[in-house]
């Protein structure tokens, strides 16, 4: 291979990191000291954390070769369950509420798994259906309004308020989940099986891997992580509502962008984390510079298009696809 080809390889593999550095540099030059102020950085870390956790969940299921279109609703459900349980006067244990959220949303993931693996509905459609049903239930439960209570324990916003080493707990949690996810997917046997099932399920069956079991684990893990992301989101906004949370398309976007990092089209945690950071810097930075909301959409569209096009041209057929039929 000529030297030129290897340079372009590096460019393609590290495109996301390069964009991240360039974007940050531009904001620092344009925004000056204000962009580096404490509140700004904390805002960026907060939005990275909520979006990133949802992305990490989606990365797990995407690695298994399935799609979870219900991540948006799972995130909302995590927040709503936690908030609504604490509305009850006799229920004031925050950790218990969080546990209930994660378990119940995990059960939603189990339903997704059953629909996909037992009824053989393509995961894309099955999760779409689940998302519609649960979204409706959440609206019924909260009467489609923003729920907020002064009686909520202080712990409800602790993730956002409390800092360790000047960095909010929410970001430490995000880091812990990302590292945990990375170790799970790359270093444990189950995690390796998830990746293999995503690449070639038939071959996995033939060598004796229980693909259904592995995929079920992936569905439940994804849902539980995203549900916890919802709890984190609720602690940032200090309220819950059936229409707020992390947008499903934003979640898909960061996993897609992340997939272009290093692995040339395969969803991976490191890429997802970087992409979440990039998204957070973009939206907070543009707001800081007084740019309207659409600027972020346009830039995001261009970055995804360029990143995936580069990979599509260099390595044909390695990008993730989803079956719809």
């Amino acid at each position, binding site marked *: 291979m000529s030297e030129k080809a290897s340079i372009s390889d590096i460019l393609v593999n590290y495109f996301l990191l390069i964009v991240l550095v360039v974007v940050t540099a531009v904001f620092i030059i344009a925004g000056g000291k204000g962009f580096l102020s404490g509140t700004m950085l904390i805002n960026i870390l907060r939005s990275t954390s909520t979006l990133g956790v949802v992305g990490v969940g989606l990365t797990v299921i995407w690695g298994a070769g399935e799609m979870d279109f219900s991540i948006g609703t799972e995130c909302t459900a995590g927040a709503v369950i936690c908030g609504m349980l604490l509305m009850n006067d006799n229920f004031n244990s925050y950790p218990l509420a969080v546990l209930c959220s994660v378990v119940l949303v995990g059960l939603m993931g189990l339903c997704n798994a059953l629909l996909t693996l037992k*009824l*053989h509905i393509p995961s894309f459609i099955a999760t779409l259906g689940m998302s519609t*049903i649960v979204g409706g239930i959440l*609206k019924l439960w909260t009467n489609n309004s923003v729920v907020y209570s002064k009686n909520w324990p202080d712990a409800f916003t602790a993730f956002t308020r409390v800092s360790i080493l000047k960095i909010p707990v929410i970001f430490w949690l995000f880091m812990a989940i990302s590292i945990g996810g990375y170790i799970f997917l790359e270093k444990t046997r189950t995690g390796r099986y998830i990746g293999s099932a995503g690449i070639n399920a038939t071959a996995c069956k033939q060598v004796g891997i229980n693909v259904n079991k592995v995929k079920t684990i992936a569905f439940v893990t994804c849902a539980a992580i995203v549900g916890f992301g919802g709890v984190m989101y609720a602690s940032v906004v200090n309220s819950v509502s059936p229409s707020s949370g992390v947008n499903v398309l934003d979640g898909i976007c960061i996993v897609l962008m992340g997939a272009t990092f290093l692995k040339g089209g395969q969803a991976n945690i490191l890429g997802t984390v970087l992409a979440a950071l990039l998204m957070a810097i973009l939206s907070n930075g543009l707001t800081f510079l007084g740019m309207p909301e659409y600027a972020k959409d346009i830039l995001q*569209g*261009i970055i995804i298009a360029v990143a995936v096009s580069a990979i599509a041209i260099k390595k044909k057929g390695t990008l993730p696809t989803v079956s719809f039929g």
Partner: protein
Amino acid sequence: MEIQTSNGKKSGRFKKFIIRYFLLIVLLIVGIMFTLFVPSFASPSNLLDILGSTCITGIMAIGMTFVMITGEIDFAASAELSLGGCLVAALMNIKGMPSYLLAVMITLALMSLVGLANKLIHVNIGVPSFIGTMAVSTFVSGVLRYVTNGIVIFNMKWPDSFRFLGQAYVAGVIPVMAIVFILVVAVAYFTTEYTKFGMRLRAIGMNPVTSRHVGINVKRYKTWAFTICSIVVGFAGIIQVSQLNMADPYLGDATIITCLSACMLGATFYRVGEFNVLGSAVAALLLAELSKGITMLGVSLYWRNVVQGIVLLIAIGTVSMIRKSHNG
């Protein structure tokens, strides 16, 4: 993916018939159940209203079906819906725009550009349509918000023709939307089922590699599919703006899920396991029937989402299970 049954056996043929028209049976059962609770549900004017209210989702789903028949997806559909609606409104606001018809024509012509953008990134560059159209979608909705400043376009001086498509009634009872919907279904059905063009689209969806080997220009047909989709979805946007008498840049934001639901449900009907125009139309009708019926029952509107999801899963689950048991 036709279901294999032994020819001549009556039970097999009956089963095949049931699977093929399962969605229509669901449609009828749901209709009868609503009528039992609310007798006025079955009145002709109400049924026509339901048909009319199917129009926007239905036409959008039919546009999407063209792309899905070829085995691809157009995630930019929601942005296309908003764009179509806002373009026609913005054009009507230009001083000296001679007629509404001209504005519609220009809008549809501009809509084809979005289809070509999807085509460029998928067909020419080779990005999977699932990802490529999502990038186009983000980009288009950003541009749209830039052009409209993120606010609703509204003008008192719009002529009556602006509201004709979405608000007028023929003979006092038949909504124009219902007629437009039936016309679009008829044309799309004929195109996909009875022309060489439609057969080739289906062939590509079943097996793009074989299609290329037998000499079908896959790239050209996919280009057509994406372009038709963006134009048809843009037209749905025009109708919605006409119905609301204003254009909101956030118009289409929540529509992609309903549109995909209709297409997926539709794949259980008529051509089982394949996306098809008739199926998408019947599925859109079922979704409209559910939301109208639930509104008439007087229960909380949010039950609509719950019921929609359950119907989606039951219909697709049933067909998937039957197919699995047939194929062994």
